[in-house]
């Protein structure tokens, strides 16, 4: 049983299906927000593997001894500035933006924190603060933009990939924000720790990491692959 953070669910499904085909084991995915999954695990939820959307919760779990082995990073999230319907999005567009600006809550969501860091690093945070509408999660930020309620916003690249959005977004330079490190752990309460570890190893393998990368993440292990992705389909200036 795999508890997976909602934003990674679609990728996890692809990976799980392949894993099932190869090993014959059944993988059951339960998704939810990272915080909720963490709370459930703390109170004994019967999961074997936890694919978190951040690194904080896996570390907290490790501190309380609920983890077998160490947390491993399986992907890095990538933040984009998205203005649907526009063909040319630049940093200028961002600095000149003066309508509603959607992002995730920096206090609760890693992508939100990243978005704030971007604005801070660009020196725009104080100016844009009043325009910001916060979603509790990055999903919400995306929904705000996707439904047109907010004209533009910070979303995850993976979300745009899911919907096959080809343009209208600005892939933000990764030095503008701290890496959004997505970590995974095998839980110590699991009865299938070995299998859990196998699954983790499986998704960390190169082939699978390419899938992860295609879905809009930086892969975790191989910086080479990361380089590839950086150039591929890039809209960076």
């Amino acid at each position: 049983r795999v508890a997976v953070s909602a934003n990674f669910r679609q990728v996890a499904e692809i990976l799980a299906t392949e894993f099932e085909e190869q090993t014959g084991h059944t993988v059951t995915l339960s998704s939810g927000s990272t915080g909720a999954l963490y709370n459930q695990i703390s109170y004994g939820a019967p999961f074997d593997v936890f694919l978190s959307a951040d690194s904080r919760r896996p570390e907290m779990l490790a501190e309380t001894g609920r983890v077998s082995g160490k947390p491993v990073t399986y992907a890095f999230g990538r933040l984009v500035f998205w203005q649907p319907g526009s063909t040319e999005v630049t940093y200028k567009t961002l600095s000149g933006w003066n309508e509603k600006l959607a992002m995730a809550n920096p206090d609760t969501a890693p992508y939100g924190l990243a978005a704030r860091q971007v604005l801070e690093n660009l020196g725009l945070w104080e100016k844009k603060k009043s325009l910001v509408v916060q979603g509790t999660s990055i999903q919400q930020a995306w929904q705000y933009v996707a439904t047109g309620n907010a004209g533009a916003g910070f979303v995850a690249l993976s979300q745009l990939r899911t919907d096959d959005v080809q343009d209208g977004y600005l892939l933000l330079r990764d030095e503008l924000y701290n890496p959004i490190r997505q970590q995974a752990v095998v839980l110590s309460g699991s009865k299938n720790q070995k299998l859990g570890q196998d699954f983790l190893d499986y998704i960390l393998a190169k082939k699978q990491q390419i899938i992860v990368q295609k879905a809009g993440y930086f892969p975790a292990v191989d910086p080479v692959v990361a380089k590839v992705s950086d150039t591929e389909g890039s809209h960076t200036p």
Partner: protein
Amino acid sequence: MTGEAWQAVSVTLQLAGLTTLLLIAIGLPMAWKLAGMTSGFRPVLEALVGLPLVLPPTVLGFYLLVAFSPNNLPGQVWQDLTGTTLAFSFSGLVLASVIYSLPFVVQPLQRAFEQLDRGLLEAASSLGAGPIDRFFSVVLPQTFRPLLLAACLGFAHTVGEFGVVLMIGGNIPGETQVLSIALYDAVETQDFASAHTMAAGLMLFALVLLIALYSLDRKGHR
């Protein structure tokens, strides 16, 4: 608690209060109309009113978000009228809460109206009371308790509801950040100290309010 938390409290109370008032204002005539309907169309309307209930609040919120978008008709109309977007505004929150809590207000009221003794209305009519007069002098006093119940349920539900509000609100401090979301966030980020404080405060407040209301209710009616 922080200043932001107090702001959230104030927004919450405003939201719940205003929503309750609107719920009564809309629910009352709706329940009255429904109770008086005899056509076979009535079960359909009744079911429609109850419908928001079966959708998970965030999902309902999502669909409301779609509807509120300036790209779609309702949102567009609103924008044309007021120049602002419905989403991320206090008005939008109120509207969404009203839609979501409506069944809890309409249905008890409708039942109360149906059980109303029509004989008393006839008596009032024979004594010279017109329809509006009858409504205020007979119907309302007769359905005071269900009305109070409906208002209580509506209020409490709006205070506690967060799915819809979460979706529509955009968490803007002082405008759309309500207590329930702050509480939710606290639990999500494992800030249990704040969570416990807020939960306890909320429940204490609700307890006091409800006890006060119910005691009042009992005094009012023997």
